[in-house]
């Protein structure tokens, strides 16, 4: 089998395993959709100004925001925790002793995470359309596809990189959440910040979460005329992704750290 076929085969086995682990599947799917309903319930009536400058109903803000959050959960949080746990269980070390190339194994995990992210974004967009009458991003399809590809690849690379900072399976949720949750809160993803301190906004713009969220807002903005391609935001996300890939190449460990 070619290495590419092997990587594709790994995606299949990772998917099979994912759907057999109900807590993980529930956590990944239920939380973002629950958040979509909850935040709409609480903040949906407010009018919100999108990154594009257009003022829209709260629900039109929450569809892209939760789409970005879903992608981050699936590609960053799940990839980092999954790899840290697999390493702790000795699965990575065993894989290392087979002829399967290391990149093919990691590509399998990332490919599986990306498939989950795409499904989640599709569900979020569908719920937005059916329940909140948020238009589907048909005009901005090129922007949607590019944002999903760049976002999934970059956050997955960062997810792989962050495993270098995780000691064992017990530490995985703490480390991963400590990295991602503060960023989510200062990045206009869950709660549209009203008159936040300037430095918080500045810090948010250093990291990729806010850029992904704004790229997604453009894609889902019904008043957006163009293809929805936010090259500036996507460039920052991609730069973080490349830095993550470089850090992963340098620091990634296959052996349990005990």
């Amino acid at each position: 089998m070619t290495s590419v076929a092997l990587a594709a085969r790994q995606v299949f086995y990772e998917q099979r395993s994912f759907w057999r682990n109900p807590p993980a599947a529930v956590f990944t799917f239920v939380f973002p959709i629950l958040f979509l309903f909850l935040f709409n319930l609480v903040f949906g009536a407010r009018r919100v100004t999108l990154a594009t400058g257009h003022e829209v109903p709260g629900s039109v803000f929450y569809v892209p925001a939760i789409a970005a959050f879903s992608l981050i959960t699936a590609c960053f949080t799940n990839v980092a925790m999954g790899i840290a746990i697999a390493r702790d269980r000795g699965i990575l070390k065993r894989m290392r002793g087979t002829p399967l190339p290391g990149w093919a194994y990691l590509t399998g995990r990332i490919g599986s995470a990306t498939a989950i992210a795409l499904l989640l974004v599709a569900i979020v967009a569908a719920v937005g359309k059916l329940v909140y009458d948020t238009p589907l991003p048909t005009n901005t399809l090129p922007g949607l596809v590019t944002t999903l590809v760049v976002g999934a690849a970059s956050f997955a690379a960062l997810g792989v990189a962050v495993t270098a900072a995780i000691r064992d399976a017990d530490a995985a949720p703490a480390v991963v959440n400590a990295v991602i949750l503060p960023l989510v809160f200062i990045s206009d993803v869950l709660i549209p910040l009203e008159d936040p301190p300037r430095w918080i906004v500045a810090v948010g713009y250093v990291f990729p979460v806010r850029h992904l969220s704004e790229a997604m807002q453009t894609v889902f903005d019904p008043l957006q005329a163009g293809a929805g391609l936010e090259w500036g935001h996507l460039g920052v996300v991609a730069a973080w992704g490349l830095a993550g890939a470089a850090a992963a190449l340098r620091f990634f460990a296959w052996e349990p750290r005990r």
Partner: protein
Amino acid sequence: MLAAMSEPAVVARGLRKRYGEVEALRGIDLTVARGEIFALLGPNGAGKTTAVEILEGHRTRSSGDVSVLGMDPERGGTRLRERIGIVLQETGVDPYLTAREAVSMFRGYYPRPRETDEVLEAVGLADRADERITRLSGGQRRRLDVALALVGDPEVLFLDEPTTGFDPSARRGAWRMIRSLRSGGTTIFLTTHYMEEAQELADRAAILAGGRIVAEGKPEELTRGGDTTRIRYRGSPPPFAPQASVSGGMVEISTSDAVRDLHRLTAWALEAGEALDGLEVRPRSLEDVYLQLTGEGA
């Protein structure tokens, strides 16, 4: 091809491994011929796992030459890993797959694999094949470890403490399986701290202690020479045997002249009214040699 088959499966010369200030391996030499079962014995912390993981390519060495199937495991990469099978001491597998799925997943990594069902049969998991791995017992998981190492039809199989934690009947089952692999031509390199395992299985064994090989040979050669017989009973030691050791009321005499010493012992016992409770006469075992050499005995 014939030349390739006659070259040793594993060779190590002057192999050293240093972890900071600690020298785990202090220059070991090993040769494992094709098709034999080789056991590396030693107490915990002797360096067995370090040695076997260097041979597997999981660790780098500090100095010395190592070759597995003619390749340096540090640089053999995919080409070497296609031809070896590894059972690590501690290892994991995706718990949500079934045993059969895990074996067929691994099967895809190898150019000339064995059949999934045949491998599951060989390790005795055929009737548990469709069970999720989460529902397998510890011993069954260990057998799955072996199945995953076997499915690539390896020429050399490394087993790091394959039967630790097994009950006696499971251990005998594992031995049967390992012997049947050898009859199929597989070279087996195993580490163990069970002397019985080495004595039962190994064509050749080496004893590793303090980072050095302190003895090497066929199990029957290792037990030959010196005091070849052990005499044990409960009671007090006889006056003629100053070498007798007493612990917990048990007297043990090792001797190279069993006929003379037994004769003197029974004569003395008859006169002194010693019962020689639980009298036992047995050949020196690998364990005796091991305890002597590793300094764990006496």
